[in-house]
């Protein structure tokens, strides 16, 4: 359960996340809602030491992953030693505190 809804164009099959009102490729307007599925491959990442106001931490790893079914998404990578191309498992978890409440998002942990 990743908590993310991605969109697959009914006309040309392009997979998009986040949502667009028209397909980025063919301008189609009908989509099938899909969930990211399969392992997530780490396409790129950064280790952030200077975070915005309200996030008091260092070494936060943020990355872009691609799932086996083509969904691409940004998430919080919970790996001490991230590597390009590494396989990650996706979960839906707290990623930030907003107004005292946890905000949820995509968290990614290394696959054993």
């Amino acid at each position, binding site marked *: 359960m990743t908590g993310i809804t991605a969109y697959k164009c009914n006309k040309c099959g392009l997979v*998009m*996340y*986040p949502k667009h009102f028209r397909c*980025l490729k063919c301008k189609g307007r009908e989509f099938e809602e899909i969930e990211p599925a399969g392992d997530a491959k780490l*396409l*790129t*990442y*950064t*280790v*952030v*030491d*200077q*975070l*915005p*106001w*309200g*996030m008091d931490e260092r070494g*936060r790893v*943020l*990355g*872009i992953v691609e799932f086996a079914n083509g969904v*691409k*998404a*940004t*998430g*919080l990578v919970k790996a001490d030693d991230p590597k*390009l191309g590494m396989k990650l498992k996706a979960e839906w978890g707290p*990623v*930030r505190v*907003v107004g005292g409440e946890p*905000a949820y*998002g*995509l968290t990614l942990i290394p696959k054993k």
Partner: protein
Amino acid sequence: MRPVVIAGVGMIPFERTEEGGLVEMLATAGLNALVDAGVDDRPVDAVYLGNMASGLFNHQEAVASALVDSLALMPAAAERVENGPASGGSAIKNGFLAVASGFSDIVLVVGGEKMREVIGPKATDIVATMTHPMAEYVYGVTLPAQAGMFARLYMTKYGITRHHLAQVAIKNQNNGLLNPYAHIQMKITEEGILTHPQAHINNPVVADPLYLYDCCPVSDGAAAVLLTTPEIAKALKKPQVIIAGVGQATDTHALQEREDPTDLKAVTLAAKKAFEMAGAQPKDIDVAELHDAFTILEIAESEHAGFFKKGEGAQALDAGVTQIGGKLPINPSGGLKARGHPVGATGVAQIVELVWQLRGTAGKRQVKEAQTGFSLNFGGFGNNVLAFVVRREA
């Protein structure tokens, strides 16, 4: 379309402004451009203000109206143009269109931002609100984080090292020492920021692989240009520096949706359009001001704009091609890295620098016999980009 001349330019030093608010800064830069053009009591038809976030930074809106009032330009038309860190470039484009179309004869374009009114992490957050709210921002994605993710891929793909990034920082900070308007006035060495065992103390990680000296400072600043027709510019006895080409292009909001995340498509397209309109090619450019908010961007933009082949920008940098005195000086002003990056001001400040260069009045950082200049203003993380070709007519 009518030709459009940049008949006046003005700036205030980029720094942490201690006295006066945003409107005073904008008005001072605007007045400098009016005085430089010598318009005196000629009526100004319109004012376009490039500003990204006066509401969030300064708790003030409708700033263009405040600006015309401050400069006694009523009843000139006035509005603020917002396009993130390319707000300045977008304001210039709007001013250009107004004069080129014949709708206006004299237009003042001002760009400015007062970012240091809030603390650093707050400024980082305000700028980060440009990212996609649910797909990026919620995770703590900032502009440096996007640049870090881009840099990792770009460096891996093209064999760019931290040595190359340091060369951008060193060159631009050296150039900044020649520019009295530059925020950062400090010579740095590769030893001090990279090779010394304790360099990490001077140069800590911001968003790995980008470090402090890979990132532009947070600055206050404003810049202005006065745009008019060749006839009026002649009557004002000003050099005929024209906006010969304008290009703009957009790309996906979220970085993850780019088919090839190392491809800055909007940069390529904006530059191509500007060159086509100007009837020029990259080889015709004598001096360029690129949007080096992060060192990696100067290298990547120099390639995407067509000055060097993909993967060859770093070698050109290493060979001194982009130094003042090289074949294609890039960022003689010091760029965003040294001049500073008050977001709404940058696109206008780039054009101001080019006009000084083309007029031959750039002082110690003058590029010899510069006739044609190029600027690139990079909005968001490359999702809304403007490019300009400016030329000194004989």
